[in-house]
């Protein structure tokens, strides 16, 4: 199977873009995107606090599930036609990416060259704040990588270290696949 290396970049950008799409959708309810010079106070009247939702705590279990450090356990799973590039399903473990709060590591499942699943193997658990953040962030990020769509956001200010490390681990899995 050949996966061009640029796909890594696209997925990475896409994961931010998915965040962007979600953000824009939310923001569109408040006001049109602001330009700095003109109107960035459009959203002043609205509180953006979102209450904890039901995802709290979900990721802790998956975080604890796998702490394996091996960089590349390629696992051809449910392939029905080993010679074909269109029906292989493989799971690649991304590299473990260090953050200040601990390692982030994911596995990525490819089917027919497309990402079909992303699992967090490790997320930082030693830091009180990051546990709270990651419990919510990880499942959302996984969905974003799978659903990566348009590229309306170029970059993110205040993005988590861990979500960027997550994207990097995903990218390393893609690079191994390529």
């Amino acid at each position: 199977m050949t996966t061009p290396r640029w796909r890594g970049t696209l997925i990475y950008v896409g994961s931010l873009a998915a965040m962007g799409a979600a953000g824009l959708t939310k923001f569109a309810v408040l006001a049109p995107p602001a330009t700095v010079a003109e109107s960035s106070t459009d959203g002043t009247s609205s509180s953006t606090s979102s209450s904890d939702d039901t995802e709290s705590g979900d990721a802790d279990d998956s975080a604890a599930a796998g702490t394996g450090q091996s960089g590349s356990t390629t696992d051809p799973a449910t392939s029905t036609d080993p010679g074909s590039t269109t029906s292989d399903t493989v799971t690649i473990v991304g590299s473990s990416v260090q953050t200040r709060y601990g390692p982030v590591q994911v596995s990525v499942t490819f089917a027919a060259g497309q990402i079909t699943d992303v699992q967090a193997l490790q997320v930082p658990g030693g830091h009180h704040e990051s546990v709270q953040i990651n419990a919510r962030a990880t499942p959302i990020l996984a969905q974003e990588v799978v659903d990566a769509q348009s590229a309306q956001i170029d970059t993110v200010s205040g993005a988590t270290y861990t979500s960027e490390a997550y994207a990097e681990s995903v990218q390393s899995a893609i690079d191994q696949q390529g």
Partner: protein
Amino acid sequence: MRHLELVMGIPMSVDVRDVVDEQVERAAVRDAFDRMHDADRRFSRYLPDSEVSRYDGGGASSDLREVLGIAERFGELSGGAFSVRRPDGSLDTDGVVKGWAAQRAADTLTAAGLTTFCLNAGGDVVVRGEPEGGRGWNVGVRDPSDPQSFLTVLEVRDGAVATSGTYERGEHVWDGRTGQVATGLRSATVVAADLTTADVLATCVLALGPDGIAWASQHGAAAVLAVDADGELLTALQAAPA
């Protein structure tokens, strides 16, 4: 070209949109990252023989003097809320160095002839030019209480955006006036002409609390966006020049 690299565990990335010789571009990006690694080594509190760790108030390099000078200036402007002296008395230049080093890295890209790029240093951003004709860089500002959504999307050309918050690193910013950790705001985002200013101001706003929002707009912030402890969004824009 997009390049991502960890500098002291913090992901930093550069997205260059110029159409230039690839070798020139690679050399410029390498140089920019080398400067950030260099600043990290010299100003790290975590390395026992770094310049900051060894600094005893005596002679300092020109770079350290510059960093301490910035800290002193904003310390005075903020009435002492911003300080590079931790409550225990030790020197901690992190509040200045990250933005300062990233801005210097961006300046090396500019000096190499690049005009259209976005440099993101762990969530603090410098942009130059337009990624597409007619529009600036769209910088999403993370909602501190929800990693999947944004407070807003700022369209920025030739400017910088820095965010300081308690949601990720915990309450790591202290108020230099009291020595207590700052808890009045969950996050503060500052847009300014350069990242050195944006980053220091974002930290100042977090240290000052809600009062710092209007203050920052009078001290170099083009725009300030903050979320208070109750989740309320507060903003301020720089007053239009008379």
